[in-house]
């Protein structure tokens, strides 16, 4: 995890995946692959999209860089600055708020010593507050990597932070807490 992205190039495996994604759309409509490929790029390049990464995606799709920038800045799932290894995205909307989301967020902020929007100095954790994630019946909740962590309590947050702060954290794994 870091802020320097020296070599901007997909691995062989990811490049093959990108080409498969592009093939899903009619000829000359390859721009449709932009969102899925931005997701792929974000996962490949340290969890965020730098300008060189976006330029690389533009080259892959044979579109102008501005077409990538305007999309990447519109959708909230794309991180435009570096984030910690473990990005905790709390839902704070309606039903989550009714079930103590604000208190859980505040508790986590205090525990990690950072506010929403910030990253711990060791680059292990970042906090983000997002709008409805479609888990209203299992509130309060947070998305971490690929999965949802639901029915959160202060005790559960302690366990999550202890487990996910370990070096082997992988955002594509589901951790039983």
């Amino acid at each position, binding site marked *: 995890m870091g802020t320097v992205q020296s070599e901007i190039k997909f691995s062989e495996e990811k490049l093959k995946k990108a080409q498969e994604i592009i093939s*899903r759309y*009619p000829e000359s*409509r390859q*721009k*449709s*692959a*932009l*969102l*899925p490929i*931005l*997701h792929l790029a974000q996962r490949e390049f340290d969890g965020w999209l730098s300008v060189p990464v976006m330029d690389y995606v533009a080259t892959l*799709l044979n*579109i102008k860089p501005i*077409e990538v920038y*305007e*999309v990447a800045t*519109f*959708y*909230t*799932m*794309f991180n435009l600055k570096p984030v910690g290894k473990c990005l905790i995205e709390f839902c*704070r*909307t*309606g*039903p989550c*708020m*009714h079930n103590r989301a*604000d208190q859980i967020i505040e508790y986590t902020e205090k525990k990690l010593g950072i506010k929403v929007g910030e990253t711990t100095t060791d680059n292990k954790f970042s906090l983000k507050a*997002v*709008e*409805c*994630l*479609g*888990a*209203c*019946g*299992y*509130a309060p909740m947070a*998305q971490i990597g*690929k*999965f949802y962590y639901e029915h959160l309590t202060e005790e559960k947050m302690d366990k999550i932070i202890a487990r996910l702060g370990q070096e082997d954290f992988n955002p594509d794994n*589901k951790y039983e807490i």
Partner: protein
Amino acid sequence: MARKLLLENINVPGVKSFNVYRANGGYRSVEKALKTMSPDDVMEEVKKSGLRGRGGAGFPTGMKWSFLDRKSDKPRYLVCNADESEPGTFKDRFLMEYIPHLLIEGLIVSSYSLGSNTTYIYIRGEYRWIVDILENAIAEAKHNGFLGKNILGSGYDLEIYVQPGGGAYICGEETALIESLEGKRGNPRMKPPFPAISGLYNCPTVVNNVETLATVVPIINMGGDEYAKIGVGRSTGTKLISACGHMNKPGVYEIELGLPVDEFLNSDEYCGGIRAGHTLKAVVPGGSSVPILPAELFYKTKEGVARLMSYESLSEGGFASGSMLGSGGFIAMDETTCIVRNLWNFTRFYHHESCGQCSPCREGTGWMEKVLHRLEHGHGSMSDIDLLVDIAKKIEGNTICPLGDAAAWPVASHIRHFREEFEYHVKFPEKVAHSPFAHSVDYKRELNTVLQ
């Protein structure tokens, strides 16, 4: 025990896999449609069923299909709207996560009827693990001859692809979804032309919600006329309701439309009642955008008629004293809920999710959020309450897409039914500034004391 059509096999172990789903009657509708029915026959059955779109608007599905330009030489597309993002709504997630082949089956039959050879499932990007589930289901269906070239020897070809969004509520609006699927910002398009004439890549396109397309399966299996016998009036069939908030058993339930709201909220078969020791204060019955109903107008209409879980009954009284079934995102709130805070939260959501294309929505939602923030934090004035109503009026009906209406309706209805609570926030700023929830129980008593 209520009749289940969509979730009939939800408790069958392993039903997520093709083999188990198939062994329990899955894909019969594909066999029936492709072997014994023409595409028009399928559409006729959907029309007869009276199925209304389950995404929120409730437009008749068969009629929507009939608008598709079938004379055009261009390819036709079916796009499945799985961009579920309305606060309170999590039913499509449940269906895709636990019984994905039902959606794939519905997509095959619907695509056949519409003449689409390429169909996209546009799913909200956050549901990353569900993308894997759907892609696995698609691969299994293809491996077993239900997708790809010459399905079941019928001569019909179909490919289904999953497209993740990027976290934008507006992409649930069909034209914004199409823009997003074309790799652009999710800015809604002006209508007309409607997608049925000029949609994805300017080709004839139908956009339907996940639950709507899944419901095509039981309709074809049982026949449109039989399906239409379920439910009440023009609210035919069953509906998934995602229930959340201050209740004992939040979750996703399949109900027969026409079920009394009292039974849905309070019986053990469904929500199990409001949490112990508390009383119901208000309900948002169809996702955050629909008007809020105070408990007394939720159980009974203004005329004293018992309210039902149906499109017509929940909207009885119009917006003055009724609401909407909407997406089925059912949010129950007990007496500890601060209505001002609830509205501030909802309005923040709409401000955040406004695409920014139309000035009334872009500026108005932010303005309302600011006013509500100061009211909730004890810095508001009485004129702020009327100001909110005024801003909401100026947004409603004045935007390209319905997000403006969706932002305005909660503001108008929260103030209409709970004006006293907004006034309380002005009169007792010291009570609301530091205790966002604790004050809500006693606000009426204290307000009455002051007014007397």
